[in-house]
């Protein structure tokens, strides 16, 4: 049975590995079906619903939850909050994997994935929002890759290359913030062209602002949430500095998230007022909208605030999950639930199980890649050769 043992002596057949392996197996089979049988073979997409779960979850949620990279690096390097430094590398890694998987997922969703580079080399289409999203995601993925490289370079012992990349940190952070501001908002702007399809409670000419502000909430919450999972599973990989700074990161990000959530709630109210949508609140859709606003915006806002006041780390960590779910719910509402709301139920979109399988497959790849990098590279600890080098 020696072949079932890992190099560290642990068994390969843990419940986590078995579930992950099963998901990868199903995902692999569905991948073959997708690329041999086309979109119709594995999805419920139609002319009425050309964008489904792979856009709503893999792209919109993926990009929003990867916002922790620009939020954390901006806090540390632009606003000079060095006490959050230990959170930067895990956040950048999460963001890099998030964006890489967004691009990976797009290959499943677009009809002819080999044409993904066309906007850059064949038809510029510079007036298109999708061009702007595509350009920003491509550029930001590159920026995140460079921002992430000090960790593998330290791991591999390439000191000179590592020192050159570290000198670029501030420039890369500024690029990251600019590019994120552009494409996070543009993802919301994509839905501004569909006023007759999106329910008025979710439709607003302020959608780009909503998407950008909520991405900050997603980024802050994701850093706290990912940090709590890392503490549970990779505690032994964390050095003293990381452990010492961890509570400060949770408290600081919790307080910031409470503040931004409060602002987000106010601008959503302004959106209701400007479009005079109050009467829709007294409908079934209104009830669902209130669930999102009160249960997944105002409630996490209050819980974050109470957690920061009481220095209740556990409460903030639990609230981060609620806030992350709130972002998922919002993106689902905009892209699927409240989209085509006027169509009869027979024409409405519900994802095929194989679409869900591919989304799970992609999330699983992300989790496994995160585990691979964190257990090998200096992500949660400082490399001994570069202690106090920043």
């Amino acid at each position, binding site marked *: 049975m020696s072949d079932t043992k890992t190099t560290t002596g642990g068994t390969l057949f843990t419940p986590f590995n078995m579930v992950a392996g099963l998901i990868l197996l199903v995902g692999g089979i569905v991948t073959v079906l997708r690329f041999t049988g086309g979109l119709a073979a594995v999805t419920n997409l139609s002319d009425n619903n050309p964008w489904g779960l792979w856009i709503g979850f893999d792209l919109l949620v993926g990009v929003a939850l990867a916002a922790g990279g620009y939020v954390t690096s901006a806090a540390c390097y632009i606003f000079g909050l060095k006490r959050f430094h230990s959170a930067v590398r895990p956040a950048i890694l999460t963001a890099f994997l998030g964006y890489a998987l967004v691009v990976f997922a797009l290959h499943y969703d677009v009809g002819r994935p080999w044409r993904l580079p066309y906007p850059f080399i064949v038809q510029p289409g510079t007036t298109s929002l999708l061009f702007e999203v595509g350009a920003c995601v491509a550029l930001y993925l590159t920026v995140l890759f460079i921002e992430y490289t000090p960790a593998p370079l330290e791991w591999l012992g390439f000191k000179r290359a590592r020192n050159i990349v570290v000198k670029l940190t501030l420039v890369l952070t500024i690029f990251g913030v600019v590019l994120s501001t552009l494409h996070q908002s543009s993802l919301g702007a994509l839905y501004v062209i569909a006023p007759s399809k999106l329910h008025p409670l979710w439709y607003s000419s302020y959608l780009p602002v909503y998407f950008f502000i909520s991405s900050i909430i997603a980024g802050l919450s994701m850093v706290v949430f990912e940090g709590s999972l890392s503490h549970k599973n990779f505690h032994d990989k964390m050095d003293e500095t990381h452990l010492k700074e961890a509570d400060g990161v949770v408290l600081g990000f919790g*307080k910031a998230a409470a503040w931004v959530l409060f*602002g987000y709630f*106010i601008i959503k109210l*302004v959106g209701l*007022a400007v*479009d*005079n949508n109050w009467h829709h609140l007294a409908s079934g859709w209104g009830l669902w909208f209130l669930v999102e606003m009160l249960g997944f915006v105002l409630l996490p806002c209050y819980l974050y*605030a109470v957690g920061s*006041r009481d220095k209740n780390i556990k409460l903030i960590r639990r609230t981060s999950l609620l806030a992350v779910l709130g972002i998922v719910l919002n993106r689902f509402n905009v892209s699927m639930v409240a989209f085509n709301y006027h169509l009869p139920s027979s024409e409405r979109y519900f994802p095929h199980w194989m679409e869900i399988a591919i989304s799970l497959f992609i999330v699983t790849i992300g989790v496994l890649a995160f585990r691979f990098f964190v257990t090998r590279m200096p992500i949660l600890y400082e490399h001994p050769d570069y202690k106090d080098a920043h």
Partner: protein
Amino acid sequence: MDGNIFTLQDFMYFTKAITYLVIVAALIAFPAFWLFLTDRDE
């Protein structure tokens, strides 16, 4: 009020009035929330 909206002017007048009220409420709520958030800070 909705029944009295006949023109774009009516619509803008009504929605702007409500928006201004929301903003006034926000201007009061923001400092109050900030105090709630920070009053136990050292």
